[in-house]
């Protein structure tokens, strides 16, 4: 469960003030709103990439307001994937596991499992430069899920994809719920994408959250 209690965030001169929100464990919540409404700012606050000026962020009952991003148990998939140019697909899937000190055998087993699920097996030795848009987003999704986080944050992950590729990844995201008990917060501008995946759709308008 994600619980925001009257949090205030700032991005330049823009402020989100005293925002409260509760996302049930295991649910898929979609956050919509106009460009500049503060959706990404809110996501960054939850992930620990932007300081929370007041209030608190709790994940699974634990106060993570002042924890570094890596200790919050959140996997992040940004809009453009933000893959690491110098790492292969295999290294992407194993990156967090290596940083977190998993043994080589456990790492390899997890990489294999993710590669099978995301259909990345034949691409494991490729660099991001050799991947299509859809393949890049599948790698970004696998990298975010690799360390089995409690929360998955998706920041418009399908916005730059063609319809066919988008449907493929929507299928993977739908199937994710049957594979892992994960709480998902998903930002999108696409209503059909939201309706296909969401348990709940929220709108961020004028700094306020509305159902």
């Amino acid at each position: 469960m994600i619980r925001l209690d009257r949090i205030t965030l700032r991005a330049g001169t823009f402020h989100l003030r005293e925002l409260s929100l509760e996302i049930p464990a295991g649910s898929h919540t979609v956050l919509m709103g106009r460009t500049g409404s503060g959706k990404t700012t809110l996501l960054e606050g939850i992930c620990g990439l932007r300081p929370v000026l007041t209030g608190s962020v709790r994940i699974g009952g634990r106060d993570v307001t002042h924890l570094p991003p890596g200790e919050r148990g959140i996997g992040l998939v940004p809009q453009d994937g933000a893959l690491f140019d110098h790492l292969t697909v295999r290294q992407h899937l194993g990156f967090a596991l290596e940083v977190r000190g998993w043994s080589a055998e456990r790492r390899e087993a997890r990489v294999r499992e993710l590669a099978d699920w995301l259909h990345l097996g034949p691409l494991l030795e490729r660099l991001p430069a050799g991947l299509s848009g859809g393949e890049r987003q599948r790698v970004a999704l696998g990298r975010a899920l690799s360390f089995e986080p409690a929360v998955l944050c998706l920041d418009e992950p399908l916005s730059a994809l063609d319809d066919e590729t988008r449907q493929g990844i929507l299928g993977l995201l739908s199937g994710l719920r049957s594979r892992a008990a994960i709480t998902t917060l998903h930002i999108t501008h696409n209503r059909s994408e939201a309706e296909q995946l969401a348990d709940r759709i929220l709108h961020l308008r004028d700094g306020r959250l509305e159902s």
Partner: protein
Amino acid sequence: MTPGLGPMSPRGRDRRFLGAMAVLGGTYVVLLVAMVAADLLYTTPGHLWRALGSPEIRYAIRLSLLSCTLTTLLSLWVAVPIGYLLSRFDFPGRPLLDALLDIPIVLPPLVIGLSLLILFQTAPLRALERVFPVTYAVPSVILAQFMVACAFAVRTMRNTFAQINPRQEQVALTLGCSRSQAFWRVVLPSAKSGVLTAATLAWARALGEFGPILVFSGATRLKTEVLPTTVFLELSVGRLEAAVAVSLLMMASAVVALLLVRSWGGGGLPGPGGGGVG
């Protein structure tokens, strides 16, 4: 017909415009090529061979290679952290620091040498010189080269880091990296071509540095003589052939450096305020 443009067809006007642009730009290119060609025609292989055989010139080559390499390493040591901080963080005084770092690029080289000389006349540095001589010794050559070359390396690294998507680093943080792990594992490897470009530019810039070295290190043969000093000394005693031969050596090094920069993805020499390298 548009008034004032005359009877020429649109295609003819375009051709005249592009021709004028080519002639204006071409003048500079012709001058550049003519200059190199003149140097090449002036020098014979014999001149070059004799120059390379001279103990003074061989010393200058060795010192130039050593000092430029040390300058490059020192420049990277400083440029990587400054470039990273300037490109990633907003902090009080950042615009001032940014402008300050451009000073060695815009300042006359002689002034840098003079300023270094004055700095080493202050009490703390005079005390340092009693145990570790700098002025008019080899360390002064490296310091003089460093003061100019480092500014180019900083500018290159700042542009390089600015072009790397900060989201990559943020994702690395969510994956469990500390800030320093994200830097070493994600940011720096992504900046590899920028680091190589900065190193090459710093090396090439250091090789050509003369003004600050003349003032701060002097022009003493077999002591503080680097290749530009050799050109100056050979000219001053009327040995034009030797001066041209050494100039050609420096030109060849500069061309190799530029080719390396291009092959590593550098867009060119960075100027004040950003030059698009990286």
